[in-house]
């Protein structure tokens, strides 16, 4: 076992922590809403979401922004619990892309 990609506290070379406030995008607010709705329904727990992010591919984890990781872990948990399939999610994604032009 090695130190996980999420567990970087105290490592040198991480750079300064960005502490300035920034405007959330609509999709980030939506990600939070979906997350909270799933929690309220008892479908997922925060600990499960964290575990899903810890188990992600390390390169993908590093490339993603904060809420992108949230979305990825929500997807993992929903597939894991047989609520949605990967195929259903991908199909919907194609639908959105064709409707809005941009993902």
């Amino acid at each position, binding site marked *: *076992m090695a130190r*996980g990609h999420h*567990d970087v506290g*105290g490592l040198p070379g991480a750079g300064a922590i960005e502490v300035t406030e920034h405007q959330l995008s609509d999709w980030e607010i939506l990600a939070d809403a979906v997350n909270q709705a799933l929690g309220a329904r008892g479908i997922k*727990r925060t*600990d*499960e979401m964290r*575990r899903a992010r*810890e188990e992600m591919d390390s390169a993908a984890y590093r490339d993603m922004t904060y809420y992108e990781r949230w979305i990825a872990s929500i997807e993992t948990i929903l597939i*894991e619990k047989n609520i949605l399939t990967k195929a259903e999610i991908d199909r919907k994604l194609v639908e959105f892309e064709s409707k809005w032009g941009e993902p």
Partner: protein
Amino acid sequence: MTPATGRFRTGDRVKVKFEDRPGHLRTPWYIRGKSGRIEKVYGDFLNPELLAFGKDGLPKKTLYQVAFDHSEVFGKAQGAKDKVLVDIYDHWLETLA
């Protein structure tokens, strides 16, 4: 809240286990193997290591706030009065004489 069932009380000297195993481990890497003192007993909570895998989280584990000297964690005397405070569950701690 019911009284905490854990082994430690405020002021007890403890050492964090240096464990590394698969799973959802809530004790950060940088504090494993370090020695400190129980600062606060929060109470008993469902075990996140089990909740992370969709289990019920039982039996509950006592959660503590543990204080570490700055020098113990960062290896230098800088900030001699400063403490590093980390929340750690009972099963990650062992008694330090």
